[in-house]
């Protein structure tokens, strides 16, 4: 079964600094990978997704992620964070097992921004 690990429970960065959130997955075949963001009291918003092709994926709000098969990773990056980026970030994977797809989430990383 597929699984996702987000090793950082909580990250604090200064506004304007760069950001990298780590995500490692476990799945035998090529996974479909996602990053979602959840602002306090809100639902889940899709930042970006990877299915195939170019391993560097651009998303909304200036985020990007890079798929590295050799490291089983799909880390999320942003060159300069804004105070509004403070939120919970979830990495997720789905198995391309047609007819039985389920999105499996990591435990999330809480991002705090210091002014």
């Amino acid at each position: 079964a597929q699984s996702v690990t987000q090793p950082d429970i909580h990250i604090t960065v200064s506004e304007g600094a760069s950001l990298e959130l780590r995500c490692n997955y476990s799945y035998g075949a090529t996974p479909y990978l996602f990053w979602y963001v959840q602002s306090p009291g809100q639902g889940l918003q899709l930042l970006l997704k990877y299915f195939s092709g170019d391993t560097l994926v651009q998303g909304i709000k200036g985020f990007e992620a890079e798929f590295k098969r050799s490291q089983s990773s799909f880390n999320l990056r942003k060159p300069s964070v804004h105070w509004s980026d403070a939120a919970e970030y979830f990495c997720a994977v789905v198995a391309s097992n047609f007819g039985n797809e389920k999105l499996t989430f990591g435990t999330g990383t809480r991002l705090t921004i210091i002014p």
Partner: protein
Amino acid sequence: DTAVSQTPKYLVTQMGNDKSIKCEQNLGHDTMYWYKQDSKKFLKIMFSYNNKELIINETVPNRFSPKSPDKAHLNLHINSLELGDSAVYFCASSLTEYGYTFGSGTRLTVV
């Protein structure tokens, strides 16, 4: 024109009561899901329906019963509510594996 809408947004109820949460999607997706987010923010799938047919049923107490009257609706009924059922419940829909759209969640508090 909300894509995935859940009602109610907040639900406070006493232990032992029965309650329902409703979900509707207007995206034309074939598959709908219920996820539970616990107090530590962990998201775990509960159920999945594809064209009104149950395809995923994770280890969930029998007190939880999903119902899908048509592929645009997936409701969640919970019997004999317990304190541990307090969580945020998210409905989602998808068209195969290419994209999942989530509702804004229902915060259930059992007192």
